[in-house]
């Protein structure tokens, strides 16, 4: 498999704090890679550095063989990387359809007219199940639909790499299952997807590979099953004492 995204020693410091510290990872073409880690592990900072919203303090980002380190966000987006925001950022005074159309209008290479973009938006809304709310304003949507809208905006760009920052947080179990199905079908269509999530069940279900971040560093990497039973991961997530108890319980 070829590598679509690669980071090499990626570091981002805030004052004395290394929010992302020497992280080297690869994301293979057409794979789903899950990023997990406790709050403050550096997951969102990692995405912000990769997508150009933050300049790295050190290290490199290579997308599709091109060095995109420190490129501006719109250049990264036009190269084919689209992202969602952890806290949804819809355009509040535009309709849901117009929100999505903006993705198509300015996305990678497809400088499309307003009219064509609105037609594109209808297709994407159909796909994520938001067609009925096309004329609504984002503020009128429930949380699950807000997350769908965030995803639809990113999809309308026709990206090659999709970075999803906690699109399942706050959803009900049935809605999470829907999201899992959607991610799988996007993968089937050839997309490469990075999923950042707190919902362990979801991450383990969709990922081909899971990367664990802890205090800015890459703590572990491997197939979901291995990661789920990795002592260091359990410790990072739940604390030393709990990890010990799990171990003892397992032994007994």
């Amino acid at each position, binding site marked *: 498999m070829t590598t679509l995204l690669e980071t090499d020693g990626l570091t981002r410091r805030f004052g004395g704090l290394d929010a992302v510290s020497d992280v080297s990872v690869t994301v293979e073409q057409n794979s789903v890679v899950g990023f997990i880690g406790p709050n403050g592990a550096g997951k969102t900072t990692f995405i912000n550095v990769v*997508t150009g*919203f933050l300049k790295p303090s050190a290290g490199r980002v290579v997308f599709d063989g091109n060095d995109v380190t420190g490129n*501006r*966000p*719109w250049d990264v*987006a*036009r190269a084919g990387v*689209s*992202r969602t*925001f952890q806290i949804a*950022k*819809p*355009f*509040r*005074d*535009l*309709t849901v*359809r*117009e929100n999505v*159309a*903006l*993705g198509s*209008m*300015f*996305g*990678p290479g497809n*400088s499309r*007219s*307003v*009219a*064509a973009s*609105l*037609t594109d938006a*209808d297709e994407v809304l159909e796909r994520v199940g938001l067609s009925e709310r096309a004329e609504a304003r984002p503020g009128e949507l429930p949380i699950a639909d807000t997350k769908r809208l965030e995803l639809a*905006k*990113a999809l309308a*760009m026709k990206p090659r790499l999709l970075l999803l920052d906690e699109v399942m947080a706050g959803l009900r179990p049935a809605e999470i299952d829907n999201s899992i199905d959607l991610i799988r079908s996007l993968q089937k269509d050839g997309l490469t997807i990075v999923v950042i999530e707190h919902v362990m069940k979801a991450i383990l279900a969709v990922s081909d590979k899971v990367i664990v971040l802890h205090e800015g560093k890459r703590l572990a990497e491997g197939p979901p099953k291995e990661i789920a039973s990795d002592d260091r991961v359990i410790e990072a997530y739940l604390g030393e004492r709990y990890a010990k108890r799990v171990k003892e319980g397992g032994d007994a």
Partner: protein
Amino acid sequence: MAESAARSTRIPQPSSPAGWILVGLGAAGFAYLLYAPVLLLESFLRTLGGVFMFATLALAWNIIGGFAGYASFGNVVFFGLGGYTVATLMAKAGWTFWPALVVAGAVGVLFAVLMGLPILRLRGHYFAIATLSVAEGMREIVVNMPSLTGGGAGITIPAVGLEATTSYPGNTGFYYFFLILLLVALAVTWRVSRSRFGYSLRAIHQDEDSAAALGINTTRAKVAAFALSGLLTALTGAIYAFQQVTIYPNRLFSIEFTVLMVVMAVIGGTGTIFGPVVGAVGLQFLSEYLRQNYLELHTVLFGAIIILAVIFLPNGIVESARELRSTKRIRFLDNVKANRL
């Protein structure tokens, strides 16, 4: 596709008899404005020209302040630069008006780009303060370069006699200049509001990070909006300078102009096409009325009315009227259904 495009834009399409009546009234009003100089007193023509001028300034401000959401409190700097470019070229270099007007427009664009690149990185209050400072600073520069600008004593464009490079167009002439410029500003705003560029500005206004994540080059879009605003404002200042003949830095870089363009756009409705025009027409006539009837108190009353308007019509006149109409209709229909009338 055509249908979806029509739905997406916020331009009222004449889909009902009432819509066509509005279009007809607009056409009749326009015909009247063209013919007005024959019918009206010269002094009233001058007032109307002033109304057109402020409507253009408010429309120009609306592009950066309304669409892009960057509230410039220094747009008067373009007005003053445009005016001084024309005055200096005509008085000192013996240019005629029209080429000087073109250069004034170019100066507006150039200055907007140079000023915009650094300060459009600032958001909110910081941007407002920075633009205000630039405008005040520019006035000081103009005052302190008397050899070129005439300094605080002002500069006079040769408008009569043998020294006049372009004969003075008079009240009727300036009436048409301002009318044409207003129509240009309206056409530009209409084009912007329907275009990809307009969408990118609205996106930047509502969430700049999200706009950048969707591939919008936010720096370029903001600078372009500022340049377009600067162009229209500089052209307005250029015509105003010629009309005044003698111009002074304290007038051409007056903070009062900035405040008026902001207030007119805000009260009329930012980010709309006709809002700034409605605001300019309303406030100019109100100001004129108050001046004539309450000589002592007119600024106090004018200020009080502006404050009340901002409190009670926070979205502007155009948007509030639209909301009122739509809610009334719903209530009426609900009433019909509820009572099976």
